[in-house]
């Protein structure tokens, strides 16, 4: 019996030893998975942004870009996020939406900024999208739903065909898995706390838009594509109950109001 147990233990140990040994090898590099994924991500991000920039008007007004940049800078600096890698685009469209694209593109619609009552609400949404970028949710979603082979073929075809439109539509107007959405929400809350922004504003934003749609005359893309917003708002409130945080305004009321006026004037 003892001999048998000893031999079994050796087989188990051998299995784990081989597994452990193999896991020390960088298979991504050997199979060139990382390289292919990275180059596909870059091409896809640029392709998608080209399509959007041709059909939408990108805001170039410094008075709008600067305050948004200040907000994002503060969020990034407080959370060790490399701000330089983010490619932020503000699009003049009366739609409440923001979304992340491959290769760190972050698209913000002016409709979202004007629907936010304060910088905390806007930062909550931006933090949510930035956490999708940080946690590589975008490529995970694309690979999962369309497959890497199709994505590579999209980039080699140069954006022709319906597949590119279909995958872009998926990124701009459909939510991620519930688990990924919750992860992005909670990460955004952590980002806000680290940046000394009150995370309650983010919960308020979700709750306000999900419960008072009739008062908001714009298309609620971000909310309609992120269902169960009330539940998410409640989860955020529950999450921050246990947290202690201090708050400090980044822009100040005047700058924030000025930003909203500039957007209205576009």
């Amino acid at each position, binding site marked *: 019996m003892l001999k048998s147990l000893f031999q079994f233990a050796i087989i188990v140990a051998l*299995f784990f030893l081989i597994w452990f040994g193999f896991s020390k*090898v960088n298979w991504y590099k050997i199979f060139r998975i990382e390289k292919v994924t990275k180059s596909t991500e870059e091409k896809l991000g640029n392709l998608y942004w080209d399509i959007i920039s041709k059909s939408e008007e990108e805001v170039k007004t410094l008075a709008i870009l600067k305050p948004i940049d200040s907000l994002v800078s503060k969020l990034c600096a407080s959370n060790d996020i490399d701000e330089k890698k983010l490619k932020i685009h503000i699009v003049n469209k009366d739609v409440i939406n923001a979304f992340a694209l491959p290769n760190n593109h972050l698209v913000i619609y002016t409709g979202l900024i004007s629907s936010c009552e304060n910088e905390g609400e806007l930062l909550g949404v931006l933090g949510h999208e930035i956490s999708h970028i940080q946690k590589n949710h975008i490529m995970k979603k694309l690979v999962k739903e369309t497959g890497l082979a199709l994505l590579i073929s999209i980039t080699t075809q140069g954006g022709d065909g319906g597949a590119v439109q279909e995958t872009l539509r998926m990124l701009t107007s459909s939510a991620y898995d519930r688990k990924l959405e919750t992860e992005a929400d909670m990460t955004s809350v952590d980002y806000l706390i680290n940046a000394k922004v009150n995370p309650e504003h983010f919960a308020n934003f979700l709750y306000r838009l999900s419960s008072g749609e009739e008062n908001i005359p714009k298309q609620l893309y971000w909310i309609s594509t992120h269902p169960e917003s009330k539940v998410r708002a409640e989860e955020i409130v529950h999450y921050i109950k246990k947290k202690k945080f201090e708050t400090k305004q980044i822009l100040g009321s005047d700058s924030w109001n000025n930003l909203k006026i500039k957007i209205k004037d576009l």
Partner: protein
Amino acid sequence: MSLIKPFSYLPSEHETEKASNSYLMSLIAVVAGMPLPIINLFATLFFFIGNRKSTYFVRWHCTQALVSQLTLLFINSAAFWWTISIMFTEETITTKYIAYMLTVIIFNITEFVVTIYTAIKTRKGIHVEWWFYGTFTHLICKR
């Protein structure tokens, strides 16, 4: 992995054929090209049940063929469900997953080679005992 040892008696032609077939049963899923790891176990289990009242030599080898499937069943099942979770959930391919699959492949190939070797030797009436499985079979298969 396997050792040729003398058996307590010289098996007849009829016994060696049956004993050899018990190993071939465990390869049935590979022959059928089915990815489900449970198929192998069922095939050897049914053969074992069918021969449980047979001679000691046949029972002994049926038992060894059956218990050798058990460990593979666990590691193959884990590989199967890990792959399913990558395909249908937010789980992604990681270095750990690739390493696990390679380890599983090595264990399966080893088992496959040793199974064929044992089937051939057993057919010739030569008694082959596997590392651990042979010792374990001696514990549970009595004369």
